[in-house]
């Protein structure tokens, strides 16, 4: 063991450099939420809490945030519901065409977002659907769905199918067996999948840019204002979301540990 570890001080050093590489832009984003920037936020001009005191101070930043939250919540709800059903059916069911359905779920993930965006907007244009909130939600549900299926499938695979058989033996309908037995056991996996779907939807730019028309989301706001310098309020909102997400992760973690202890 000692020999295997001997040359090994180098590896942690490289890993540490990797972590620094990964975290520097986040630190930079948080730091610049405290920048006394005025309207543009390109160079450090001194510390202030102004943007934190008035996070909606920049025009349109909060309406864009609300747009993203609405899209994120609706898409997460729909994608998580559809994806959970698919995941359960794919792991539990023995039916013809199972391979084809698996492929149907996985191909969207191997398709670059520009292609998804271009395909959806082609369809919306040919149906003469007006682009906006509705088309963004449709698009987000589509690309979140696959991720939900993969995340929930991993969880379903750890469940003992005998539990459902026991429920069926005790005269539970498949529906009752699902809600009373399978669903509660899947809940941590479903919660994690929902968090993943929300973060994918909330932060999506490419598909949103194709399918949104004039509808504003937070990533679109940031992208459009990048040329002029992003207002520090955008950094405040991103930093606050970061803290909230870390809290959510901590809660899920604590929750699943408490569940395991029971």
């Amino acid at each position: 063991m000692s020999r295997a570890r001997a040359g090994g001080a180098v590896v942690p050093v490289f890993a540490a450099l990797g972590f620094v590489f990964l975290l520097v832009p986040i630190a930079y984003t948080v730091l610049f939420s405290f920048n006394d920037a005025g309207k543009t936020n390109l160079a450090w001009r001194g510390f202030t809490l102004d943007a934190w005191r008035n996070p909606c101070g920049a025009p349109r930043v909060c309406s864009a945030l609300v747009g993203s939250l609405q899209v994120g919540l609706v898409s997460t709800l729909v994608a998580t519901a559809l994806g959970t059903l698919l995941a359960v059916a794919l792991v539990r069911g023995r039916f013809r065409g199972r391979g084809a359905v698996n492929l149907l779920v996985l191909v969207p993930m191997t398709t670059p977002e520009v292609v998804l965006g271009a395909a959806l907007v082609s369809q919306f244009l040919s149906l003469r659907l007006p682009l906006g909130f509705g088309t963004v939600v449709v698009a987000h549900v589509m690309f979140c769905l696959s991720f939900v299926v993969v995340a929930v499938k991993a969880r379903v695979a750890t469940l003992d199918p005998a539990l459902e058989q026991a429920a069926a033996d005790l005269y539970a309908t498949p529906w009752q067996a699902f809600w009373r037995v399978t669903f509660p056991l899947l809940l941590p996996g479903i919660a994690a999948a929902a968090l993943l779907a929300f973060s994918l939807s909330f932060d999506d730019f490419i598909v949103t840019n194709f399918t949104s028309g004039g509808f504003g989301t937070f990533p679109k706001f940031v992208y459009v204002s990048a040329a002029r310098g992003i207002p520090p309020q955008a950094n405040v909102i991103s930093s606050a979301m970061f803290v909230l997400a870390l809290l959510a992760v901590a809660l899920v973690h604590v929750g699943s540990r408490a569940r395991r202890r029971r």
Partner: protein
Amino acid sequence: MSVLAALGRPPAAGEPASPQAPDVQRGTRRLLLPGVLYLVVFFVVPVGVLLATSFYARVPGGEIGEFAPALRWQNYPEALAKFWPQLSRSFGFAAVATLAALVVGYPMAYVIAVRARGRPGLQGLLVVLVVAPFFTSFILRTVAWKQILADGGQVVAALRWLHVLPPDGRLSAAPAAVVIGLTYSFLPFMVLPLFASLERLDPRLLEAGSDLYASPLTTFRTVTLPLSLPGVVAGTLLTFIPAVGDYVNSSLLGNNTTTTMVGQVIEQRFFRTVDYPTAAVLSVVLMVSILTLVTLYVRRAGTRDLV
């Protein structure tokens, strides 16, 4: 390709294949319907529409953006001839960024999975650090790189001092900046599957390697690396695929002449020049070449259970 299962710590073995009670089976088939229908209507059909659009022809004497269904296959050679540089650049940049992410990400995954083994607190913290970027705005972080790599910044000054860059060398608006941005953006997608496969590595194998007088490097080359191959395959795919289609990095960190990637061209053809057939041709070419590359790569890597 259950490659993405790596994101959610896949089960060690395959899915259970035990026979089911018939009524449970009938129930599961009904669960399938809404999701399958959704993907057919909003993925399969749109891709079909895109494919059809790639053959559309301009309406003679029509307005800008007026196209009619046709079988104009010449759209393909025309678009490819015109946008070959952007297309090949996309694959080149994505390949370099994927390789860089593998080099940067492997030690990270190794430290989390092997060195932090048995210390769940530290391991959890490091995993959270890897996924932390997911919780902040992707575009804000890309803009941060633009500022970090700016001409007057410390990074450029340090690289000039180290003679990595010539005295008047710069990173902003250069291919290097775009590749750095791509590497950064998709690094977590490289680290997580590598971590998942290295975590399953039995530490006794490493001890056995050193007991048999293998140097650490030999142990790595003959034991660790081959066993982590599924993670390498998954990670490179998860990095390469979004990187090829990305246009945020190339448009925010690049310039317009030497860094434009195909994603930008598709967006511009769609919304600015309203040239749907060309945008559709480039999208179809992108999708087909990626699917082909992925299939060939996965087959060659011999990890067919990934698909």
